[in-house]
């Protein structure tokens, strides 16, 4: 049965989980950089999530999500053996893989999971992949072990200094770029301020920088324009033109504002969800 959750792992209990899902049709086609759109319930909204890994042989895809609002809270209620109601993909353009050099993949928070798939693609394309990953503290750091399987270098930073470098991923990045002129590309996936900061860091070095944007989406197949983002002064759709763009050209300020457009409604939806659930239990 397609869309069955074969494995669920709580990476950060109550906050971030990893699902391995039976989806042979998606696994057969998915490439690094692609995402899926899923729906958990009949009344649910469509949520885009980047594919963290695939295994075409066993026909599975892996997704990692942060429990943020009602829809991800509903997803978190599903367990191994449950089916995901709707799962659509692979969507978006695949990562453009260049070869023959060092590629630095920077990941922050849940973005590390999406970055993992891109890093793996770069490794398979024959690049020397340096992973730089950061989180608020040691317990929130994802995919360190998985990245170490193919990245010769995994550099770590935490905001509180509980593990690795005490500070920001951009400090590690700058340091690395100063020492190494074989870097052909920097890829960043994570919170918007982090991707903006990475792009700013690489600019003086002139290093091509790719960011993967997590815009709000509805259909995810180029129909609604909700995910539009300004890149180099032009309006682009993250779902069909992206989700990866040249970080030096993205208007991050606009992206941040657009991501917040529904925040009060998301809270209302979450409160409604909690209230209904409490009523159900009483």
């Amino acid at each position, binding site marked *: 049965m397609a869309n069955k959750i074969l494995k669920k792992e709580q990476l950060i209990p109550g906050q971030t989980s990893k699902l391995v899902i039976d989806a042979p049709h998606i696994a057969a086609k998915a490439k690094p950089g692609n995402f899926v759109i899923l729906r958990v319930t009949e009344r649910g909204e469509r949520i885009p999530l980047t594919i963290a890994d695939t295994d075409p042989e066993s026909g599975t895809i892996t997704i990692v999500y942060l429990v943020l609002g009602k829809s991800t809270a509903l997803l978190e209620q599903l367990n191994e053996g449950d089916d995901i109601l709707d799962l659509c993909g692979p969507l978006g353009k695949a990562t453009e893989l260049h070869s023959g050099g060092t590629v630095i993949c920077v990941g922050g928070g849940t973005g590390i999971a999406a970055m993992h798939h891109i890093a793996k693609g770069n490794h398979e394309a024959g690049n020397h992949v340096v992973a730089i990953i950061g989180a608020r503290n040691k317990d929130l750091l994802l995919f360190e072990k998985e990245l170490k399987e193919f990245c010769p270098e995994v550099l770590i930073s935490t905001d509180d200094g509980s593990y690795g470098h005490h500070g920001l991923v951009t400090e590690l990045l700058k340091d690395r770029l100063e020492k190494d002129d074989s870097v052909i590309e920097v890829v960043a996936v994570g919170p918007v301020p982090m991707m903006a900061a990475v792009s700013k860091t690489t600019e003086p070095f002139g290093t091509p920088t790719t960011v993967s944007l997590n815009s709000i989406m*509805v259909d995810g197949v180029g129909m609604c324009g909700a995910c539009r983002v300004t890149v180099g002064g032009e*309006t682009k759709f993250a779902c069909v033109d992206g989700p990866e763009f040249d970080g030096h050209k993205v208007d991050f300020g606009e992206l941040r504002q657009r991501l917040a457009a529904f925040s009060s409604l998301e809270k209302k*939806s979450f409160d409604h*969800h909690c209230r209904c659930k409490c009523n159900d239990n009483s």
Partner: protein
Amino acid sequence: MPNQPAEERARNFKEVALGYTKEMAMQEAARCLNCKKPKCVQGCPVQVPIADFIAEVAKGNIEKAYSVIKSTNSLPAICGRVCPQEIQCEGACILNAKDQPIAIGRLERYVADEYMYLDACDLISAKPECPFIDEEKKVACIGSGPSSLTVAGYLASRGCKVTIFEALHEVGGVLVYGIPEFRLPKEDVVAKEVGALKDLQVDFVTNYVGGKTFSIEDLKEQGYKAVFVGVGAGLPRFLNISGENLCGVFSANEYLTRVNLGRAYDFPNYDTPIIKGRKVTVYGGGNVAMDAARTAQRLGAETVHIVYRRTADAMPARLEELEHAVEEGIILEVLANPIEFKSDGSGNLASVTLQKMKMGEPDDSGRCRPLPIEGETYELETDLAVIAVGTRPNPVLLENEPDLKLNKWGYIEADEETNETSIPDVYAGGDIVTGAATVILAMGAGRKAAQEIARRFGIED
């Protein structure tokens, strides 16, 4: 035809038009002159034998009338509601010369509604039983909008095995995400007509994206002998003016998809949110603009303006939809063209600057060109803008099928007679061929393709 009173319907999502009673339908049908060579049929893209079905209605034989319509139209309850009859069948009616034309659309709708609840197989092809399905005659449709549904209805009722692949989670394409509930009820009409196709053993596969989840080649390898591409119009166009990406500026596609497909009008009982807007402005003059404006009104806006750069009588929307909108309190802001969206200082839309326009001389197309009146601009307060100025071809399938020849506008090139594309046995129809058009024109294209596919399968009518 009776409608819900304007002040009442402007606050709910229930259907506006209430439909004929049998008495009203028979009375209207009795006006038909039963022309020997009925012009109305020539005006119908799917060639419904209009005079024949009306003659049955006049006699009170509604079931017979239904099977007459169904012989060429698999979606009559939908067509009876959303076809631009005034420029098609009714526009061609000979009674136009001295009186009102026959209300063909309303009669079609009445007949379809009466019989939609019956066993579809008995009626869909005017044949007595469900046809035997030959699993070898496999046809795939990509997209589940009106053109694909028409292909499926035609071929399945003639014994072909049809599978429809849909990218979204619900079947119906524009009928579901685009046209609002108050004009086309989803459960009572769209789902029922789709259900009739399921009775004919048409398979529906949702969450499958042509060009992404599968390619045309994949379908051929799976034994599909013909493929119909009906993936719709695609990416929304924007105005390319400053401030267009402010929060509160939506494409009509996003606005309507949230409300119709996501049922955002019932948020938070449904999870898809919508920004409701207090002072709403809608840009464009077509049916989509009318739908967006009337939706905003129903979501509780204080004022809704439709901003259009020409005059109201040049609007491409159906007259009935325009009239309904005005009755419901929508304000027409004509001879006005947006030139800038302004922010409240924190990224949210606060107002729009409009350029006053005047109508100039007709251009090559014969249409008068709107011209700016230099120096005359004004501000309109707005916290929600909906842009309904058309679409561009969606690249998702096209980028991944390089053998599919496109025309100079980027739409799929298809043979006018057969709707076959540059890839043999691959057909296309609907908005992905013509650019944004009407449901019935998409159905007409689907019918042409289906007839050609049937012919190649050796199925004679």
